C-alpha cells in the first residue's frame, strides 16, 4: 500500500466521522468538513469550467486569431458572440448596468423554453397519457390467460383520474365525488409511500458505503510499517474521540432537562 493511499483514505475516514458528528449536534469538526466540501467543490468546478469548456469550446476555436485584436480576425469570429453574451452576464455585479445581463438571460430563456415546451409536452404529458390509456384499450390484456395486466391497467387508469380529481376544486367533494376524491388520496399516499421507501433505502445506502470506507481504512491503518503518519492520524482521531466522550458525558449530566433543538 502506498503512502498516498493511506493518507487519503485516512483523511476520508476522518472527514466521514466529522460529518456524522452533526447527527449529535453542530460542532467545529462538522463545520470544518462542511466548509472544506463547499470550498473544494467550488474550486474544482471553476477549474473544470476553464479547462473543459472555455479552452476547448472558445479559445481553441478562436486560436487562429490574435488575442491583442480580441480574436476579431479569427476565421471563426462568430464564437465571439456567445463570449460577449457571457461577459454581459457579469454586469449583474453593477447596480447601474445590471440591466445589460437581461439580454443574455432573455436569449437563454427563450431558447430553453422553445426547446423544452414541445419536447416536454410530448415526453412527459402525451406519452404518459397514452401509456395510462393504452392498457385498457388493448382488450387482449383482459382475455389472456394472465389477466393481471388488464387489472393493473384499470387500476392505473382509474387511479390517475381519481388523483387528478382530488385537485379539482370547482366541484364540492361530497357524495359520490367524495368517494372518488378519497380513492385519489389513497392513490397519492401509495405513491408517496413508495417514494419514501425508496428515499429511506437511498439514505441507508449512503451510510452503508461510509461503513465500507471506514472498514477499508481500518484495514489500511492497521497494516504494519506506517510509522509517523499512523501516529499523527491516530492523534487526530484521539482528539475527535475525546471530544465525543466529553459530549456524551455532558449529555448524561443534562438528562432530565429539555434536549437541545
Amino acid at each position: 500500500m502506498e503512502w498516498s493511499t493511506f493518507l487519503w483514505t485516512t483523511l476520508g475516514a476522518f472527514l466521514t466521522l466529522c460529518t456524522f458528528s452533526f447527527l449529535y449536534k453542530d460542532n467545529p469538526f462538522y463545520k470544518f468538513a462542511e466548509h472544506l466540501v463547499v470550498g473544494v467543490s467550488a474550486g474544482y468546478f471553476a477549474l473544470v469550467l476553464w479547462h473543459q469548456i472555455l479552452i476547448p469550446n472558445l479559445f481553441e476555436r478562436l486560436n487562429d486569431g490574435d488575442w491583442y485584436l480580441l480574436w476579431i480576425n479569427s476565421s471563426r469570429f462568430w464564437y465571439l458572440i456567445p463570449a460577449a453574451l457571457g461577459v454581459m452576464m457579469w454586469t449583474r455585479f453593477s447596480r447601474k448596468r445590471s440591466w445589460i445581463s437581461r439580454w443574455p438571460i432573455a436569449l437563454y430563456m427563450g431558447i430553453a423554453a422553445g426547446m423544452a415546451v414541445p419536447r416536454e409536452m410530448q415526453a412527459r404529458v402525451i406519452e404518459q397519457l397514452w401509456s395510462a390509456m393504452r392498457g385498457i384499450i388493448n382488450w387482449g390484456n383482459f382475455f389472456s390467460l394472465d389477466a393481471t395486466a388488464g387489472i393493473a391497467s384499470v387500476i392505473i387508469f382509474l387511479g390517475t383520474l381519481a388523483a387528478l380529481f382530488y385537485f379539482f376544486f370547482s366541484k364540492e367533494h361530497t357524495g359520490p365525488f367524495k368517494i372518488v376524491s378519497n380513492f385519489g388520496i389513497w392513490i397519492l399516499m401509495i405513491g408517496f409511500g413508495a417514494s419514501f421507501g425508496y428515499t429511506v433505502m437511498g439514505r441507508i445506502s449512503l451510510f452503508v458505503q461510509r461503513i465500507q470506507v471506514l472498514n477499508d481504512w481500518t484495514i489500511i491503518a492497521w497494516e504494519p510499517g506506517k510509522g509517523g503518519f499512523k501516529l499523527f492520524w491516530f492523534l487526530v482521531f484521539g482528539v475527535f474521540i475525546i471530544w465525543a466522550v466529553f459530549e456524551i458525558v455532558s449529555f448524561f449530566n443534562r438528562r432530565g432537562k429539555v434536549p437541545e433543538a
Partner: protein
Amino acid sequence: MNIFDRMMSLDRRWVFLSLAIVCVVTYLWDFSVPITISNEVKSIYDRFDSLQEGDMIYMSVDYDPNALAELHPTTYALAEMCFRKKVKIIFGTLSNLGQGMVDQVIRDIADSVSHDATYNGVFYKGREIVNGVDYVFLGYKPYPAMVIQAMGLDFRVPFPTDFYGTILDSIPIMKGTKNFDQCKMVIDMAAGNVAEMWITYGHGNYGVPLALAVTGVMGADMYPYLGSGQIFGLAAGLLGSAQIEKLCNNPGRAMDGMRIQLFAHILIIFFIVMGNVGFLATRNRNKMR
C-alpha cells in the same frame, strides 16, 4: 410520564445511535441475503448480454460523489461486462463533479480487466484496455438538455476534444462515429433531473434505446417511463445495483451492502410502528380526558 409519552418524546439521537449500531454490527457479521431479480433490471442485463464484440454503447455517468454509493456498483459491473465482451464505450458526464467518477471507474476497471476472470461460466482472458480503442471519455459540459441535443447531431459539436484534450477525429473509435445512431444503446447512471432530460431529449428527439440506473430517491418517479416504453430498463438505488452485480456474476459493494439494508429497514419499520403506537395511544388518552 408513561411508556407512550416516552415513545413520543424520544430524542432523535437515540434513533441515529440505534441505526449506527445495527448497521455496524450487521456489517461485521458475515452472511448474505437472497437478492430477487426484477424484470426491469433483467431487461438491462439482457440487452447488455446481447451485445457483440465491436458494438458500441454510450454510458452517461451523471452523478457526483454524493450518489457514488448507489450508482458506482452499477457503473463498475456494466463497464467491466462491456470491456470483457470487447464492447466499445463512449463515456460522458453531464454532472459537474462526474469527471472524477468516470476517471476512477476507467482506472479501476482497466486494472480488473487486466486479470483473467470467469463470469457466468464464460472465461475471459485478461487484456489491456486502451484509451481511444476500447473507450473514449468525452468529459463534461454544462446544460444537459443542450448537450444531449447537440450530441444527437454530432458528438463533435459539444465535445471538440475528449477529456484528455485529444481531438475527437484523431481517436480511432470515433472514426465513423457521428452520433447516437452508431450506439446500440444509451445507459444513464443519474442522480438528478438529467435522467428526465435523457428521456425528453435523448429518447424523445432521437429515439435512442435508453436505460436508467438512478438513485433510490428517484426510483418511484421513473417507473411511469418504464410503463410507457420510453426506457427499456430501470435499476433503482442500491437494490438495483445489487441485482446488476448478481446478474453479471460480479459481486461488489452493492451485494455486500444488502444485508445491512435489510436490518436497517427492519429497525426503521420498528421505529415507525413504535411512533404510531405512541401517537395513537396518547391521542386516545387525550380524547378520553
